[in-house]
């Protein structure tokens, strides 16, 4: 799956499940820019798994800080 498709998928999940209205860009930080508290970080992880039909393992995802990190991690999972 192309990077832009993954980004679109993340934007779709953010709109649908986090009611995020703005744009989603690679450089955005999950906590500071997307304003995600613990429960919403949790929701994002779970809904991305549903959306992309992947499983993000905790040890991978704990180091993710930006949307770009997420795009790369999802890309790696999809390639596996």
């Amino acid at each position: 799956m192309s990077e832009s498709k993954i980004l679109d998928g993340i934007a779709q999940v953010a709109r649908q499940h986090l009611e995020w209205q703005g744009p989603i860009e690679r450089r955005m930080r999950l906590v500071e820019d997307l304003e995600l508290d613990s429960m919403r970080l949790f929701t994002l992880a779970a809904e991305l798994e549903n959306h992309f039909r992947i499983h993000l393992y905790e040890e991978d995802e704990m180091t993710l800080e930006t949307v770009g990190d997420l795009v790369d991690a999802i890309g790696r999972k999809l390639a596996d």
Partner: protein
Amino acid sequence: MSDASTLAGLLERAAQVPDTGLRLLDRSENASWHSWSEIYHGSLRVAGGLRKIGLRQGDRVSLVFPTGIDFFHAFFGTLLAGGVPVPVYPPVRLGRLAEYHHRTARMFELVRARLILADGRVRRLLGEAVRLAAPPLGCLRLGDLSKDLTADVGLGLGAETLALVQFSSGTTMDPKPVALSNRAILAQVKLLNSFWPALSTESEEEARWRPSGVSWLPLYHDMGLIGCIFTALEIPSVLTLIPPEVFVTRPAVWLRALSKYRATVSPAPNFAYGLCVKKVRDEELQGVDLSSWKVALNGAEPVSPGILRRFLERFSSFGLDPAALTPVYGLAEAALAVSFSDLETPFSSRKFARQALASEGRAQETPEGVELVSVGRPLPEFEIAIRDPEGRAQPEGHTGRLWVRGPSLMEGYLFQPEATRKAVVDGWLDTGDLGFFYQGEFFLTGRAKDMILLRGRNFAPQAIEHSLDQIQGVRTGCTVAVSHMPEGGEQEELILLVETDARASAEERDRLPGLCKKTVLTAVGVLPDQIVLLEPGTLPRTSSGKLRRQEALQLYLTDALEASPPPSPVGLALALGRSSLAMARHKRKPRKVSWEPADEKRAER
């Protein structure tokens, strides 16, 4: 093991009763069945392995597991080996690893954990926390233990030994390990089980159902572990368990499980009922019938009457019984529940004059007042006393600090004799909560302790306030973080009362609300609901200069939060020298700053 005076004894007894145990649902709602017998035998194997590596009686074993069968083997295995289990929460998803390490290491250290048992995936994340805490027996997975069944297990147990250490007031800065004996936990569990509705006998078909529960609550929390798991073990009965993360993303799974397994009892905190109203869609509830649900306990957080009404409205067409909604009060230091509202009637609420409550500590009913939900009466064998700060008993209708006496109080905070002496005085537990009795029913008004309780998590106000100190334009040490349930609101809101630096420029002031919001979110992971900018010197302090948070909140809520008059002619001159705009603002009530669009604010709920 001799009798059922311990948790391990209850498990051994339950293992003899066929068709009882745990049903674990995964995120596709597939069930896996684990009888108490299977859990008992799995736990014996773990206990053997623990003895073999040198676990001694009374050793604390920290358990870091997601909801799953391994948790139970580790928990009861620790007890059977003579150890004391200390459940600790697994990491949240996506980021915040440094904060997690720090907090978890602190918990390991506080209980002087001799061993950490962890889920395989979680264990790889615990490296830093394990390194900081350095438990003598290390951090192991269940698979690392030998399956030796010849070890001497299950000995030396007794009702007075510790059965569990659970963290209460689990703020980042000051988590408190609550030590509970087998006797206390069994007393609590028996009281709860005597409260549930009797087995339905309307028809033979229904009579075959044992009382059963459904829980999605985390296992490191008293409501989930003591209120759901141990009660099911004591009957013994069947409990259906849903991982918390499944509930949070798909709350309909909870309601479907209640229906499918004809559950009678299921507790949850206030936010969970709100989440169902917000997220569950009709098409997710095809064929759902909630009529078996007789006890929908609502505790652990302040109860919102609005949420209860909306939940009822939303799900009554699915058979929800209005009498099921049961607000309750309890705390980890009392092993869980202290008071229950009536199980047979719908919840009750009354409106009280806010001013009389805030300034005179008097409950005066008035149609325009703040609506409070009754949390009922003390459980049998429990007593609640309302006392003033000097310890004098308060009459009905007067607010005060809530003290509790009963059969399931903690032994104390583990390794914290000073904190224990403060908390338990002559057999009475100081809950730190405020409330009053009115016509025999008990109402909560707030907390004497400054702890902030939001979305199921506890926060020390200091952690939030300190994070604001670095911001340009904020007066260092002059901010207050408080939470409260707004009138007609759905859940507790976080309010920041922030004194601004007199030298701050207009642009700096304009940027402050947004900056404060992002800073707090980054520091502690929670989004403030309101940021109130104040003139310097507005916040009330003690004579020693400490901030008085609850007083600041009450002043703010009653529009009485104003800067104190400048203390000296020099101060007066300075004040006069400020711009007319600042002076005008000085006299108005604090500026409520809207820093986010309405849509975004809704999204947070």
